C-alpha cells in the first residue's frame, strides 16, 4: 500500500476547504470543510440529498467545485477527472457498482490501467495480484469469474480490490453496506480496518447510525449541503447524530397496532420463479396475507424478492406454484388480468416502472385504466373530462404536490411521485396491495404519510404485502414479518416481540430458534435507528 511514512507523518491526507457546488436550482454543497488523516475512517452522515455523494464526486473529479480548494498530503491540487483522481491515489466505491458484468473480475480490476504487455492484456499477472490482495484482506473472489455471476457481496469486494489494486491512499465508500448481510458487513469492516491500520485514509458514507458509530473515528454530519458538525465517534450517541442529521428532535413513529386478521385474500403456494439468467430465484415460496394484515418481507436485496413480486404481479410467469387472490388462480396470467382481479402494485423502481416520466400527472394517474369503461366512450375513445376529474380528486385526496395536472411527472419530487403511484393503485380499490420499497430514498414527512396510508388501507380490510430492504421500516409498519433468504422464506416473526438483531441474523441465513421478546435496553438505539427512515 501507499501508506508511505512520509505521507503518514505529513498532516491530513486530504483537506477540502470551503467546497461549494451548485447545481441549477440546488446548492448541493455549501462551503463545506472536510479532511481525512492517514489511518483514520471518517464518516459522512446525512439525509438523502444532504450532499454526501456530491462532495465525494467533487473529490473524485466527477464534478468541479464552484468554490473551495482541495489539498492532498498538504499539496493543493486540481482534480479535473476521475482519471486524475485515480492517478493521485484516490479510490472510490460508488453507491451503484461500477463494474462491467460481462467481464471477469481480473478484467474489471485492471480496467483502464496500463498493461505490462503493452497493448496486450496480462490477466495472469493481474489474477495473481488479485489473489494476493483477497488473501491478505480476506476478500474472497475468483479472478476469472465473470462479474454477472457474483453475488452482491462479492461485487462489493471486487470494488474494494479494484481500489487496493490501484494502490489508493484514500478510499471513499458511498453507502457500501446498503446491500450487505450483517455477516458480509463484518468482513467488509475487517478489511477496511486493516487498510486504515496501514495508513490509508477512508471516507465512509452510510445511513446506518450503528455502522457509523461502529466503524469510524470521526463523523461529519451534513444537512442540506452544509456541514453541521464534525465529531469524534466515541463522543456522540445515536440520538444526537440523528438529531444533528434532521435538525430537530425525532419522536418515534408508533408501531402498528395488531389488527384482527380476516380471511386470507392473497395466498401463494409453492411458487418457483426463474431469474433473468434462468436460475431459480424463488425456490418454493408459500405465504398468505389476510384481510387487514400488513405483512412485511425483509431480506437483503437479491434474495428473490423482486422475482417474487413480479411473479405475483403477473410480470414474470412462475415455473411452478400458484397465486390466489380471493381464491382466483392468477399464476401465469398477464399483468392486466392480475390487476383486474384486484391486485394493486407499487413497483420498486419508481421512475422506470411506476410512471411514464414524459406523461402528465393526469395521464400517469390513468396509466392502469386505459380500458376502464368509466374513462372511455365507445369505441375506445378517451373521455378527457372524466380523466381530468378523476385526476383532480386523487391529487387532492393523496396530497400530491404538483403545479398542475398537465405537469410531466418527470418534474415531480421522488416523494410526490411515490404518492402519485400509491394514489393510482389505491384508486382501483385493490383487494391485495403489493408495495415494494415503499419509502426508499423518500424524505421524512412523505414517508410518514405513506406509512399511514398503508395502515389505513389495511384497516379497510385490504391485504397489504410490503417488500423492503429497510429492516427498520419493515419492523415499524408490518404486523407480521417474513424473512427471505436465497429464494426461500426462512423465518417469520412478530415485530413487536423480536429484536432487529434476530431478524438480521435470519437475513444472513441464520435461522433464529424462536424470536425472543425484546424489551428494555437496546430499544433506545432502535429509536434512533428509526430516525434513519422516518
Amino acid at each position, binding site marked *: 500500500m501507499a501508506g508511505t511514512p512520509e505521507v503518514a507523518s505529513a498532516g491530513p491526507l486530504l483537506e477540502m476547504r470551503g467546497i461549494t457546488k451548485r447545481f441549477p436550482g440546488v446548492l448541493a454543497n455549501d462551503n463545506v470543510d472536510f479532511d481525512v488523516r492517514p489511518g483514520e475512517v471518517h464518516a459522512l452522515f446525512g439525509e438523502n440529498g444532504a450532499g454526501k455523494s456530491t462532495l465525494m464526486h467533487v473529490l473524485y473529479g466527477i464534478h468541479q467545485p464552484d468554490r473551495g480548494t482541495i489539498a492532498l498530503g498538504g499539496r493543493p491540487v486540481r482534480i479535473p477527472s476521475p482519471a486524475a483522481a485515480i492517478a493521485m491515489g484516490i479510490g472510490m466505491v460508488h453507491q*451503484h457498482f*461500477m463494474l462491467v458484468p460481462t*467481464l471477469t473480475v481480473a478484467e474489471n480490476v*485492471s480496467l483502464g490501467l*496500463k498493461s505490462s504487455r503493452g*497493448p*496486450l492484456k496480462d490477466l495472469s499477472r493481474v489474477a495473481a495480484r488479485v489473489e494476493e490482495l483477497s488473501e491478505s484482506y480476506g476478500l474472497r473472489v475468483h479472478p476469472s469469474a465473470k462479474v454477472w455471476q457474483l453475488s452482491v457481496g462479492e461485487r462489493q469486494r471486487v470494488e474494494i480490490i479494484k481500489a487496493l489494486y490501484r494502490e489508493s491512499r484514500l478510499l471513499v465508500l458511498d453507502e457500501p453496506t446498503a446491500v450487505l448481510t450483517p455477516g458480509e458487513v463484518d468482513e467488509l469492516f475487517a478489511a477496511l480496518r486493516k487498510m486504515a491500520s496501514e495508513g490509508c485514509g477512508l471516507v465512509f458514507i452510510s445511513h446506518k447510525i450503528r455502522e457509523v458509530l461502529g466503524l469510524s473515528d470521526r463523523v461529519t454530519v451534513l444537512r442540506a449541503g452544509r456541514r453541521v458538525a464534525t465529531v469524534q465517534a466515541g463522543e456522540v450517541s445515536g440520538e444526537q447524530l440523528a438529531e444533528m442529521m434532521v435538525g430537530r428532535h425525532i419522536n418515534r413513529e408508533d408501531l402498528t397496532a395488531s389488527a384482527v386478521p380476516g380471511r386470507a385474500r392473497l395466498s401463494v403456494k409453492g411458487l418457483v420463479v426463474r431469474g433473468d439468467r434462468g436460475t431459480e430465484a424463488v425456490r418454493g415460496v408459500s405465504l398468505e396475507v389476510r384481510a387487514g394484515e400488513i405483512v412485511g418481507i425483509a431480506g437483503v436485496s437479491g434474495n428473490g424478492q423482486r422475482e417474487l413480486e413480479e411473479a405475483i404481479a403477473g410480470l414474470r410467469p412462475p415455473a411452478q406454484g400458484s397465486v390466489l387472490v380471493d381464491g382466483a388462480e392468477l399464476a401465469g396470467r398477464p399483468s392486466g388480468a392480475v390487476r383486474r382481479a384486484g391486485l394493486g402494485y407499487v413497483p420498486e423502481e419508481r421512475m422506470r416502472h411506476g410512471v411514464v416520466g414524459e406523461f402528465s400527472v393526469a395521464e400517469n394517474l390513468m396509466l392502469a385504466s386505459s380500458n376502464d369503461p368509466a374513462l372511455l366512450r365507445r369505441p375506445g375513445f378517451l373521455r378527457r373530462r372524466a380523466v381530468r376529474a378523476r385526476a383532480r380528486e386523487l391529487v387532492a385526496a393523496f396530497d400530491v404536490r404538483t403545479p398542475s395536472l398537465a405537469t410531466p411527472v418527470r418534474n415531480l419530487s421522488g416523494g410526490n411521485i411515490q404518492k402519485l403511484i400509491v394514489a393510482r393503485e389505491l384508486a382501483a380499490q385493490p383487494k391485495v396491495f403489493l408495495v415494494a420499497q415503499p419509502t426508499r430514498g423518500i424524505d421524512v414527512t412523505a414517508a410518514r404519510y405513506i406509512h399511514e396510508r398503508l395502515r389505513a388501507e389495511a384497516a379497510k380490510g385490504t391485504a397489504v404485502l410490503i417488500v423492503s430492504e429497510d429492516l427498520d421500516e419493515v419492523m415499524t409498519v408490518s404486523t407480521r414479518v417474513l424473512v427471505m433468504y436465497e429464494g426461500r422464506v426462512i423465518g417469520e416473526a412478530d415485530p413487536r416481540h423480536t429484536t432487529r438483531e434476530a431478524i438480521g441474523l435470519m437475513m444472513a441465513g441464520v435461522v433464529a430458534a424462536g424470536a425472543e421478546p425484546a424489551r428494555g435496553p437496546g430499544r433506545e438505539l432502535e429509536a434512533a435507528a428509526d430516525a434513519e427512515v422516518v
Partner: protein
Amino acid sequence: MSQFFTYAVITATIASAVQYAAPFLLAALGETVGQRSGVLNLGVDGIMLLSAFSCYFVALRTGSDLLGVVVGMLTGAVLGLLTAFMSVTLRAQQGISGIGVYILGLGLSDLLFVRFVGTPLPVSSLPNVSVPGLSRLPALGPMFFQQNWLVYIAFLLVPAVAFFLYRTTYGTRVLAVGENPAAADSVGISVTRTRYATVVFGCTMAGLAGSTLLLLDGIFQENLTQSAGFIAVALVYFGAWRPFGVMTGSLLYGVVTAVVLQWKSLGIIPTSAADLAATAPAVITVLALVVLAGRFKQPSSLGKAYVRGA
C-alpha cells in the same frame, strides 16, 4: 465442357459467394466494433454509397484501384466523424440520425456522379491474385485462393478484429464502454474518445466496403448498394456481435446470393421462378434473425447516449 459443368459451376458459385460476402463482411465488422462500444450506426448504407462514388471517381481519373480505395476509406472516415459527432457529442437519436445519413448518401452520391462523371465508364474491376501454392489445390484453390486482394483483406480482418476485441486492453475498454459506460468513465476511460474511435473505424470500414462493392463491378450507379449497408447491420445481429459469427452470416448471405444469381444466369433456375428465388437471401436473413435474436444479449448501452454524473 458439359461433363465439367457441375464441377465448374460449383467452384465458380462458391468463389463468387466468397466474393459477394466480402463487402458485407467489411461493413459488418466495422459496425460490430461500433456497436460493441454502444453506438448504433444505421447510416452504413449511405456511407458505402458515398465512398463507392469517391472510389469510383478517383479510380476513373487516376486509373489506380489502390488510390480509389484509400480515398473511399477517407470518405468513410470523414462521414464517421459526422456520425460520431451526432451520436456521441450531440446525443442525437441514433435511429433517426442514421436514416438521415443514409438518405443524404443516397442523394449526394448520385448527384456527384451525374455532375462529375455522367457517362458510366467502367473502371477495370479487380484482378484476382492467386495465393502461391494454395491456389493450386483442387476445388479449394479456385474457390478461396484465386480472389482479389480486397477479399483477402476482408477475411483476414476477421481474426484481427476478434484479437483486438478479446485480447487487447483497448478491446476490453471498448467492451466496457458498451456494457457500462459509467463504470468505464469511473476508472478514467473516456467514453467519448472511445466511441469516436470505434465509430470512425466502423465508418472507415464501411468506406472500404463501399469501395470493394464498387470495384467488384467496376461501375457506379444510383443506389449501387441496394441496402447492402442495412444488410450488413443485420449481419451484426445475426453474428451476435462476434467477428466470426458475423463472418458466418456474411458467407451464408454470399452463398445464397451467388447460388441464386449464378444458377439463374446459367438457366438452372428458370426465368419464371427467378424473381421468387431472388428473395431467398433476404428471407433467409430475416428467418435467421428470428431464430437467433432471442438467444443473445446486445451490448447494454447500445443506442443510448452516455451522460456523466448520473
